[in-house]
């Protein structure tokens, strides 16, 4: 059995600079035993994909507060497919109205965690669903 920890990239795509949520979740996942890499702010989708490949992460977590979660997620999923890394699980968190959750899942986000989701729920979901590459 593979005992190495799950490796997750916490990413801040686009121009939104609100990183409280991303950093707090990064702390929590680290405490839950995962290996966490945080991209820092203002990353393009291409940059995120590149880091995900370089670091060979199992999961890409997007944190989006600006309301642009749908176009950004769509772009990331498409790019991941093009780069042949669509085996990596994509999850999305941030200021996300409930009505957008089904749309995000349809686009290819495996898990969606609006602000206020308990850490245990996020970590539990990732533990259960991430496929280690």
């Amino acid at each position, binding site marked *: 059995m593979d005992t190495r920890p799950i490796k997750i990239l916490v990413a801040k795509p*686009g121009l939104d600079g609100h990183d409280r949520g991303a950093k*707090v979740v990064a702390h929590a996942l680290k405490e839950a035993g995962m290996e966490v890499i945080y991209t820092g*702010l203002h990353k393009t989708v291409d940059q995120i994909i590149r880091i995900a490949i370089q670091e060979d992460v199992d999961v890409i977590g997007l944190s989006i507060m600006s309301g642009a979660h749908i176009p*950004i997620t769509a772009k990331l999923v498409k790019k991941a497919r093009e780069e042949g890394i669509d085996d990596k699980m994509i999850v999305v968190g941030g200021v996300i109205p409930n009505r957008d959750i089904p749309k995000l899942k349809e686009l290819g986000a495996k898990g969606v965690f609006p602000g206020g989701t308990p850490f245990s729920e996020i970590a539990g979901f990732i533990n259960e669903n991430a496929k280690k590459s």
Partner: protein
Amino acid sequence: MGVAKYTKDEKDRITDVTLQSGIHVKACYGPEDLEHVGFSYEKDLAEPGQYPFTRGIHAEGFRSRAWTTRQYTGFGTPEESNERFKLMISHGQTGLNVAFDLPTQMGYDSDDPMAEGEVGRVGMAIDSLRDFEIAFKDINLEKIGSGLTINAVASIMLAMYQAVAEKFGFDPKRISATPQNDILKEMIGRGSWIFPVEPAVNLIGDTIEYSINAMPRTNPVSICGYHIRESGATPAQEIGYAILIANAYIDNVLKRGYDVDDFVGRFSFNLNVFGNIWEQVAKFRAARKLWARNLKEKYGVKKDSNMYLRGLFGGGGYGLTKAQPENNIMRGAYYALSAALAGAQTIALCSYDEAYTIPTPHSAIISLRTLQLLMDEIGLRDTVDPLAGSYFIETITKEMETKIEEEMAKIEKVGGIVQAVGTGYVQRLVSQQAYEYEKGLQSGELKKVGLNIYTEGEPMDVELHEYTGESAEKQVESLKQLRRERNDREVLRTLKELEEATRAGKNVMPYLVECCKAYATVGEMTRVFRDVFGEFQEPGLF
């Protein structure tokens, strides 16, 4: 720290309270507590309108002037924002607080690939002076002051505000803009930074220096403890960091050979309101006092009115919940109450739907009505500093002062705020605190109605502001039209002059005004700065 701590016995009686800033609260206060903290009426309180201004900056408080109501507004195209501005003014709002979209805040034009999906989303899209001409159409800029929520490119927006005022025939000496213009706080929280620390602070120095003569009624910088708190800081850290940041901007202008009394009177503050009501009131009162003392003792400020901490006390975003959103209306009312009890000059509230998206007209007007109701209906204008003299409030105001000073000392110890932001030290302190707070919220140690207690009941739904790509398309179209119609030679000439001035280390403001008047775009002007200054490299991680 983390969250406020309440200890209870087996009968659910509260046995101990410690506020978020670390202040211990007792069950009852009396004269001995004032004695214990060394309270002196003359030194710590004095009359309202007198140094150290603990009781407020005006002798008669809200009797002489009610607070300005200034809801954060703006979205879509300049046309749509202009309509909303006028709606808010028609409902009695007395100042504007302009929201810009992310591309504008980050210095990208609406047709830049970096702007994709973001044009007009969280604020209005501004590409050139033509957009300002539409956004501020039919608004009397000599009567209505405008807060401009812009930081990295605040110098550009301030120049554009002057240009639009002149175009409309208003005297720049009589207009009042309050660009946020606080880049150090962007680097601590909020994240709309572009340039490295030093040139970014220097741009702020340029706007302050320029405003002294060109726009003397403008408040060129609004120091935002607000976002630092939103990012996780405690109330004591919020004020401590804000004062240190303000000092960094003062130092920049002093180096240029000015007397501190020439400019510091135009500084203003933007502070947060959520949390324990007593802690907030104590925080605002202690902040006024510490700011005045800092200016008098450290900088030798002479004129009393230059020592005023004038503030927008408002927002409260992080206190609001997505769960049971209508409860946020009540939260907002109590937050505004704490601001009013503490003598705010300006109040704005996050609207109840802001945990979802930007406000609808309906929710924005509820926030405005909340502020009007406090002002005109329940007696908050009756007397100045109504909580003064309370054994409890005066004791914790003194204690808050000490806590703030402790937070300031920690930063001074590692080389000061500019250094501490550059290395990411402050960011790490704040994010650690945010994590502790979140854990407190999730464990139920911090109680939130509708979120972790009293969660039963009907699910509440909110009507949400809709973003459509249409505004973005319109904006890009109108930018294309501008590029066709403007005088390219004039654009190139003014941009070239801006570049030369920037490289020569001159004050860029007059050059920016010329660029704006030639209809150079925000992206083009920012490009000049990006080329000369480079970009901020984010330190530390989390």
